[in-house]
């Protein structure tokens, strides 16, 4: 069985503020963005609902970037990937 790739997740402050003890920079192992969300949910229960809707999909105004590309839940991750979770420009 191959080991899951080590990745780094960067979370926005406005998300981290919703979960006491959560951190902006997280090191974890995940083969896909969906697995990364699973990992965040294990660390801070409830975080999945803030990032994903029940379709399931990344929320419309949440952007996940890897290597400058906007990706979806099924995106495969590689060792050393840095995943940026960002809030889109929104509101008024």
């Amino acid at each position, binding site marked *: 069985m191959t080991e899951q790739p080590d990745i780094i997740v960067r979370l926005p402050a*406005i*998300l981290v*503020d*919703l979960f006491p003890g959560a951190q902006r920079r997280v090191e974890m192992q995940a083969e896909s963005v969906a697995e990364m969300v699973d990992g965040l949910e294990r660390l801070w*229960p*409830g975080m999945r*609902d*803030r*990032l994903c*809707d*029940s*379709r*399931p999909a990344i*929320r419309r*105004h*949440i952007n996940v970037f890897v290597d400058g590309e906007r990706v979806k839940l099924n995106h495969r991750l590689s060792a050393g990937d840095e995943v940026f979770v960002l*809030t*889109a420009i*929104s*509101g008024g």
Partner: protein
Amino acid sequence: MADKVLILVGTKKGAFILESDGARRDWKLSGPFCQTWPINHFVARPETGTLYAGGGDAWFGPAVWKSTDLGKTWTHSSNGLAYPEGQEPISSVWSVAAHNGSVYAGVQPAGLFRSDDDGETWTHVEGLQKHPTRPHWNPGGAGLILHSLVIDPADDDKIWVGISAAGVFHTADGGETWEPRNRGTRADFLPEGENYPEFGQCVHNVVMAAGANGRLYQQNHCGMYRTDDGGVKWESIEQGLPSSFGFPAAAHPTDRDTLFLLPLNGDTKGRYMPDAKAAVWRTRDAGRTWQDLRQGLPQENAYFGVLRQAMATDRMEKAGIYFGTSGGALFASSDEGETWREIEAHMPAILSVETLTVHD
């Protein structure tokens, strides 16, 4: 005399609390709470003082926030607050009601959820979505929202909901089965001769009269109504009012014949104060006659609206009444509407107003 009165204000940008002693002269504002999320409805459980704020954030989706220390600290949850995979996701919580051991949440798209662990986890009350009329529900201007949530204080199993624009629905078995309760309410927006359908009315707000016993009041897109049999039959009470259009309704805390409404000038005329002069209208006889209450309210250039959940009474002996405007002003009366004062002028757009009266 009560120790204090709290006004719970849900706004487009967070929840706020105004607090005063029983005299209700000096108000102290705190907030914004809930990380400035849009909060459609902010309520309290009177027995414990626990606060619940329902809303939905453009980034992070729907949740119900909770505070057990009158707003000092907050948690939030949407655990279970979801439709099955593949269905249109819930965008926002629109109404919250705490009753006995349960908390209920009405959401968009229209549905009802219940929590039996004080808002930690939620369960879908599926019976409402299973109603045979469900495929034919059409959204109102604010979307397909379950905005009014009334639970019979004498019987937990009896619930009325208002859905824009599907109408009023009632369950007598705790949510397993539902039936439309719209007879006598108009749908002026339908073709001539089809104006009294079984469902599809654009209900704006439903409130229960003091003492319940089957009496409800309704502000509709098309008229104001009273029922004395739990909504089996509604009677128009709009005669004597300046228009048939408005959003909020607020029942008196102890007198079942007293109701406060805030008619706007009309659905196609800008939806602000009639003649740009602000007034709350009060009936003391269950809607047979009406009196306009405007002392202290702006009587020129009042081009504001008041949304469906943005007016409420308190539970003091001489009832206080409060309303918030779409422009962010909050008005208060501590004498049942006879005289008014603006107690906040520059809040975000106000979406809901509720109160908590804390006795010693």
